[in-house]
């Protein structure tokens, strides 16, 4: 059983489990799935700075901070008890492209050659981690939600503005991965 769980899970197991987060949170307490709201709660909690957007009672949203604390714990548990010793298998075309940038270590979920403290201090590392993180935080709040709030929760409730947001997420991702990233890494 444990050996079986250690293998990578196929999409048709994982996708429905992710989808079940929606009714689970609704039934547990009428909570709407949305993770990027936590970034706003963090601002409201730590640096409201007299900005109207951050002046609200974040204590009512503590449940969501518990959820992401759990997600962090899920990462710890999965690596501790269910780690797959094999490297991630990805498309050979991607392997070829990344080899051209010197990325060939597939032993971790994130490329170890990019995600390390030394690389952070390089120009490319700053763009990827500090710049990328900033775009994720700024854009998700500007869009009013991220992949969980718009693509999953928003589309589950058939809200067309969430479809617009999801399409724009994908366009941005396609542009970055195919046009800008080769330039940044190359």
């Amino acid at each position, binding site marked *: 059983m444990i050996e079986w769980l250690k293998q990578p899970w196929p999409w048709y197991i994982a996708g429905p489990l992710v989808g079940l987060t929606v009714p689970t949170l609704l039934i547990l307490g009428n909570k709407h799935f949305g993770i990027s709201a936590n970034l706003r709660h963090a601002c409201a909690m730590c640096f409201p700075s007299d900005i109207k957007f951050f002046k609200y009672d974040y204590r009512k949203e503590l449940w969501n901070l518990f959820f992401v604390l759990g997600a962090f714990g899920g*990462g710890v548990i999965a*690596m501790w008890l269910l780690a797959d010793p094999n490297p991630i298998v990805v498309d050979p075309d991607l392997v070829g492209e990344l080899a051209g940038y010197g990325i060939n270590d597939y032993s971790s*979920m994130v490329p170890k050659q990019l995600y390390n403290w030394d690389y952070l201090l390089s120009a490319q590392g700053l763009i990827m981690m500090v710049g990328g993180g900033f775009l994720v935080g700024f*854009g998700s*709040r500007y*869009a009013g939600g991220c992949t969980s709030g718009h693509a999953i929760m928003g589309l589950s409730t058939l809200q067309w503005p969430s479809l617009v947001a999801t399409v724009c997420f994908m366009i941005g*991702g396609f542009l970055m991965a195919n046009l800008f990233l080769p330039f940044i890494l190359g």
Partner: protein
Amino acid sequence: MDNSATGNTDFEIRAQDTICINESQLQHKWYHNIKYLIVGVLFGIVFVKAEVISWFRIQEMFRLQSFHMYGIIGSAIAVGILSVWLIKKFNIRTIYGEPITFTPKKFNKGQIYGGLIFGLGWGLTGACPGPLFVQIGTGATVVAVVLLSAIAGTWMYGKLRDNLPH
């Protein structure tokens, strides 16, 4: 739903540009939140085991080199649509007996501009906000910097909000 004057104002501010808001009138002790922690743990485990938090998988998705991520997102939405439909059809309530409510999302241009900006960041970091927390849990400690930067980005949005097109 009962909205007292003060509660309603706070709800509107918290609900601003977010669909991740609800207004329960019940007052619970903090430990009632443990159940959300447990759901979060399961969610995190699924994200690791299905490699959703993998930078490589996200790069594959944006190059149309694999069906994996499309299968996950697509089947998650399908299960979500079906569950919400069942909840509405049978008037299912929460475990505390409260009605389950849905707030319609209003369109604004932020969903386009913000969506594109978010997408650029997603393609770069290979992680949306959920996976950031999970990645740190798997031991990729440097991702804490990405998360802090995302919080800074959110703060900057709040600061500039009134001057941005919506």
